[in-house]
């Protein structure tokens, strides 16, 4: 890579690795994170050796994590953050220090030097914010109890990283001397910077953004958004604080501002790509030489710390009242090692607390656990989740054993399902609601609706909700795969129920149609047609004529879908049918326009059309 433009070369390598590996991983049902990690392994020193310095890339890509936390902060208004203070400081500390203490203890018992054991305990106690929040986002679980619990613990780890990094040099007897006094000054500086960020965020950021927005140059607003995050991160780093924590604070301060959505959409693609890069870098940095030299030790370390952390987390899940069905997500996402582990081991290596060999081994263990996490999630989905659901049933009889008499089940109570539900409610019908957001479910229950937390793709949950006797099952979930899974379950096990399904797009419509669902609505069709009507009216068309045009179009569109349905998979035939359909509609409309012109002409000859009931509404039938 010495010749030419190095960034072009490396962009080529990284981008093609990502573009190839991620869709492949998703196709295999493994999720994008495994795709990135796999891509990293493939192009790294132990794969094709296209990249040889993963550490440099890791440093650069860490900015993806910073951006991610900024975006997480944007979603979290100060009020909600304040309500999370107990989980953050209380349960977060339990997780980190409980795990660290147990791992250290285990290490000492195994005959390892106590300082090494302590460093390993603190480093391995950390969890990967990037993978944790990445998985939560990918599965749309941020709003669940498990989601906010993972976030709380991850935040505490970010905060705790600061004192931990400060302590490590003290462990090395030699390095301890120079740090007295400096600690106080450092602490004061840190507090000062945090205060500056909070004050600045409150008083300066919004006017500044308003001023920039007024310049009406979109790319400058994007630049400002990036600058904001970079500046915060730089400020935090200058006093030795976590960049991600600073970005998170800045995000929280802007969560209530009018620029929240704008900032989100501007930064989202940067975050996505950098985070991908970060995962690739993690994949690259797995030192397979160490793993291959001592495979047994590495396996033991990985397994050991995963089990210890999982034990702590299982206890916490109970204490934090994480619903049983969400517990596996919570445990798995926090049991893994994290990128802060790398930093801790790096620092310990620098301070001479641990040797290079040990450091490599620990880093490999953490990286391997990060690789394992998404795999574990997939495994849990397939094996554990159904069983836990049955358990949940037994554990919470008050909530779940109720006989359900509402004749309708609504799966998914987001924007779509809610409208269906409210219409039913207003008409005097009740419905049983299934949703994967525990908070949402609690809210619905307050209105006296029978609502269950949980994944509607689980047969047992549907059964408890009363699917065996229901007349109607409404499938209103966001996720296409889940929607189809629910439909399959219902068709197989509850054939008496009529299905009413929301289709995200045409492909989804076909999949539902193929499964025999009769009541399918494309979620955007009707609102788009209403907008189309508005435009026609603004173009000067009479309102009723515009209404007829829209309804005609709707009818045509639905008929086309039905005509094309049997030809799914036969692209040529589909295109032919679609083209023919479009021609037919165009011919029909031009005939109608012709008809209207003719009518006008007749009127011009002395006939007045008032009283003629056919004034351009219908063409003469053939």
């Amino acid at each position, binding site marked *: 890579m010495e010749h030419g433009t190095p960034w072009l070369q490396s962009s080529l390598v990284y981008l093609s690795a990502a573009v190839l590996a991620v869709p492949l991983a998703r196709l295999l049902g493994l999720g994008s994170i495994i795709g990135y990690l796999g891509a990293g392994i493939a192009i790294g020193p132990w794969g094709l050796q296209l990249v040889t310095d993963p550490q440099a890339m890791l440093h650069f890509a860490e900015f993806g994590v910073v951006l991610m936390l900024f975006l997480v902060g944007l979603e979290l208004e100060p009020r909600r953050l304040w309500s999370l203070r107990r989980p953050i400081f209380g349960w977060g500390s339990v997780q980190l220090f409980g795990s660290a203490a147990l791992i250290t203890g285990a290490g000492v018992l195994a005959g390892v030097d106590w300082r090494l054991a302590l460093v390993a305990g603190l480093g391995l106690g950390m969890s990967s914010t990037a993978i944790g929040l990445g998985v939560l986002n990918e599965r749309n679980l941020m709003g669940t109890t498990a989601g906010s619990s993972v976030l709380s613990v991850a935040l505490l780890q970010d905060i705790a990283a600061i004192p931990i990094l400060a302590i490590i040099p003290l462990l090395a007897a030699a390095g301890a001397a120079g740090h007295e006094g400096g600690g106080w000054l450092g602490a004061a500086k840190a507090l000062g910077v945090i205060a500056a960020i909070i004050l600045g965020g409150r008083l300066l950021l919004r006017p500044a953004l308003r001023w920039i927005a007024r310049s009406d140059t979109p790319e400058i607003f994007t630049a400002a958004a990036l600058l904001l995050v970079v500046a915060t991160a730089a400020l935090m780093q200058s006093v030795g604080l976590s960049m991600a924590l600073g970005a998170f604070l800045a995000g929280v301060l802007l969560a209530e501002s009018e620029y929240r959505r704008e900032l989100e959409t501007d930064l989202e693609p940067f975050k996505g790509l950098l985070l991908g890069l970060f995962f690739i870098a993690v994949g690259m940095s797995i030192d397979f030489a160490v793993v291959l030299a001592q495979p047994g030790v590495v396996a033991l370390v990985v397994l050991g710390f995963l089990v210890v952390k999982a034990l702590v987390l299982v206890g916490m899940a109970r204490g934090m009242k994480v619903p049983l069905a969400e517990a596996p997500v919570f445990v798995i996402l926090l049991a893994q090692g994290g990128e802060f582990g790398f930093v801790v081991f790096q620092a310990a290596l620098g301070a001479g607390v641990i040797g290079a060999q040990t450091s490599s081994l620990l880093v490999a263990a953490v990286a391997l656990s990060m690789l394992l996490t998404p795999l574990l999630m997939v495994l849990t989905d397939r094996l554990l989740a159904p069983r836990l659901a049955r358990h949940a049933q037994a554990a919470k009889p008050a909530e779940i054993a109720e006989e359900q008499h509402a004749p309708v089940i609504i799966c998914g109570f987001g924007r779509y399902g809610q409208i269906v539900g409210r219409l039913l409610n207003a008409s005097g019908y009740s419905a049983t609601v299934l949703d994967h957001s525990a908070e949402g479910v609690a809210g619905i229950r307050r209105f006296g609706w029978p609502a269950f937390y949980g994944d509607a793709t689980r047969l047992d949950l549907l059964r408890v909700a009363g699917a065996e006797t229901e007349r109607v099952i409404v499938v209103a979930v966001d996720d296409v795969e889940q929607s189809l899974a629910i439909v399959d379950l219902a068709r197989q096990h509850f054939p008496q129920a009529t299905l009413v399904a929301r289709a995200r797009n045409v492909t989804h419509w076909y999949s539902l149609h193929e499964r025999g669902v009769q009541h399918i609505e494309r979620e955007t069709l009707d609102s788009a047609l209403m907008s189309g009507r508005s435009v026609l009216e603004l173009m000067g068309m009479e309102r009723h004529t515009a209404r007829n045009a829209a*309804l005609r179009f709707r*009818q045509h569109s639905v008929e086309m879908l039905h005509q094309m349905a049997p030809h799914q998979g036969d692209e040529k035939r589909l295109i032919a049918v679609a083209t023919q359909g479009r021609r037919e509609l165009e011919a029909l409309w031009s005939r109608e326009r012709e008809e209207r012109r003719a009518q006008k002409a*007749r009127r011009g000859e002395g*006939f*007045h059309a*008032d*009283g*003629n*009931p*056919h004034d351009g*509404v*219908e063409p*003469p*039938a053939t």
Partner: protein
Amino acid sequence: MAEILVIAAHPQMEQSRATRALMEAAARLSPARVQVRDLYALYPDYWIDAPAEQAALAEAKLLVWLHPVHWYSMPPLLKLWLDEVFSFGWAYGPGGRALEGKDLWLATSTGGPDSSYRPDGHNRYFFDAFLHPYEQTAALAHMRWLPPLVLHGAHRAGDADLAAHAALFAERLNTWPNWPELADIKADASCDVPADARPAEA
């Protein structure tokens, strides 16, 4: 191939007694002979599939309109059906002979009793006076207008009366076209529109 087509229209069928009783009676007859189309169930959004309706009409020899009288006229969806289905060039006007020779029969009910449809009653006119538009519609579409079946005072009709009325309706559908009175009605009171005048102009 049903030769009798019953077009039923009631905006609140769930509250109907007379129209529903008659519609159900018709639906019990042989589907090969009688096809019932409930307009408000077929087209709740007032978006009528005119080609489908015309296809059903093409098969039929007797068209029955079954509806309550609302504001001395037909319910709005049936009027829309008429506007869209009896189209220019199909049912009337140049080349509009699709309905030629078919019979049109109205089965309807009124809230007011027979006695209210008199010059001294609160409806002030004999009921026949409100049927002129129907008769003329039939004439313009080259159809034969049959004497309507009317149930006055439908609100006050008892269950037995309604059942008897529905049975009569069914019986009439079964025996058509062998009704004794049909011998006296001439086949087609057709009125062709002069070529220089647009039809149906009020």
